[in-house]
């Protein structure tokens, strides 16, 4: 039963992820923390951060919510739920998309959904900020990363690791 619930929740979340992984973060936090109590807010933040450190899509971290709940089987169920239905949908939708290349509605969908997607990404960013930025050090790290990236391109992996190391140094140094 638990595995079934895990499956439909993460399948639903992937189908709702218009604008990518960040866009669905508030809904994911709401469902996994408030609605089903699978993880606490702090655990959600830590799991999110583990996803930032690994290669590949950062949202692979969803598997750890499954792992926490039902071990490796739970992780596998979440992995399938989050990626399989969405990939099948994308495969067919993309072929349709190519088919409708000349349709003016295709442009309307792309044009109209773009600001919705950005609004959702902003909401996702704020959701993580509420969990991660609660003192001056956290705020300084976030603002510095933003400033550095506006100034020039730096490998995000370096900034992510530097954020972690600097926070440890500030807390225990």
């Amino acid at each position: 039963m638990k595995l079934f619930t895990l499956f439909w929740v993460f399948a639903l979340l992937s189908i709702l992820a218009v604008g990518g992984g960040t866009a669905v973060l508030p809904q994911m936090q709401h469902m996994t923390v408030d609605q089903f109590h699978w993880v606490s807010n702090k655990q959600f933040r830590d799991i999110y951060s583990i996803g930032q450190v690994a290669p590949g899509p950062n949202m692979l971290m969803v598997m750890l919510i499954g792992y926490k709940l039902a071990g490796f089987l739970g992780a596998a169920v979440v992995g399938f739920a989050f990626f399989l239905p969405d990939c099948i949908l994308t495969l067919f939708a993309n072929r349709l998309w190519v088919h409708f290349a000349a349709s003016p509605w295709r442009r309307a969908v792309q044009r109209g959904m773009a600001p919705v997607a950005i609004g959702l990404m902003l909401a996702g960013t704020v959701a993580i900020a509420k969990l991660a930025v609660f003192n001056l050090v956290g705020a300084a790290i976030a603002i510095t990363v933003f400033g550095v990236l506006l100034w020039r391109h730096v490998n995000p992996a370096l900034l992510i690791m530097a954020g972690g190391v600097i926070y440890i140094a500030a807390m225990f140094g």
Partner: protein
Amino acid sequence: MSETLAARASASADERPSLARIFKTFLTAGGISFGGGVVAYLREYTVRGEKWLDDDEFLDALEVSQTLPGLNAVNLSVVIGDRLRGVAGAAVAVAGILIPGMLIVMTLGVVWEERRRNPYVTAFLIGVAAAAVGLLTTVTVQLGHRQLTHWLDLTILSATFVAVTVFHISLLWVLLVIGTIAVLIYRPGSHHGEREVKLPHPHFHKRRGLLRD
């Protein structure tokens, strides 16, 4: 569909990359993209490395991947894999992009589960999340700079943000209601739809490499 079929028919059988080669290419991108930003690695390997697509085709594929639900990097793997070798190509591309990260996330997760009371581990993860906030803000501003400057887009954007963050309205309803209104605003023939769209700054495409999910 006709376009993809035609593209496939025009490429002779030996011109098409083997499934093993597709898998290996996506596996490399999936394994090397520490810290996220998989889209930039995919571009490096499929456009510059293998030359399976040119830059415009890649950006077209990316645009579709961003509009469809799901992770951008995964959708992009499906679209490129399908283009190269149909369903089987899409399957090996997705497997390649996900497998290395899955193994590493699971390994880190098992270690974290044992050590999560350790204050250094917690502090490190808080710092990582704070840095991620800076990264996400950059990506959102850079992707959305067009939406952030026109009043109509800004209104749709703000309505979406406020519905989710302030009123905690379910994402399904936000997409159905605000999404439908937004598409209708830009429906074919509406004068908003015909408004000339400023082309993004050239740096914009380069910076898109930061796109993460």
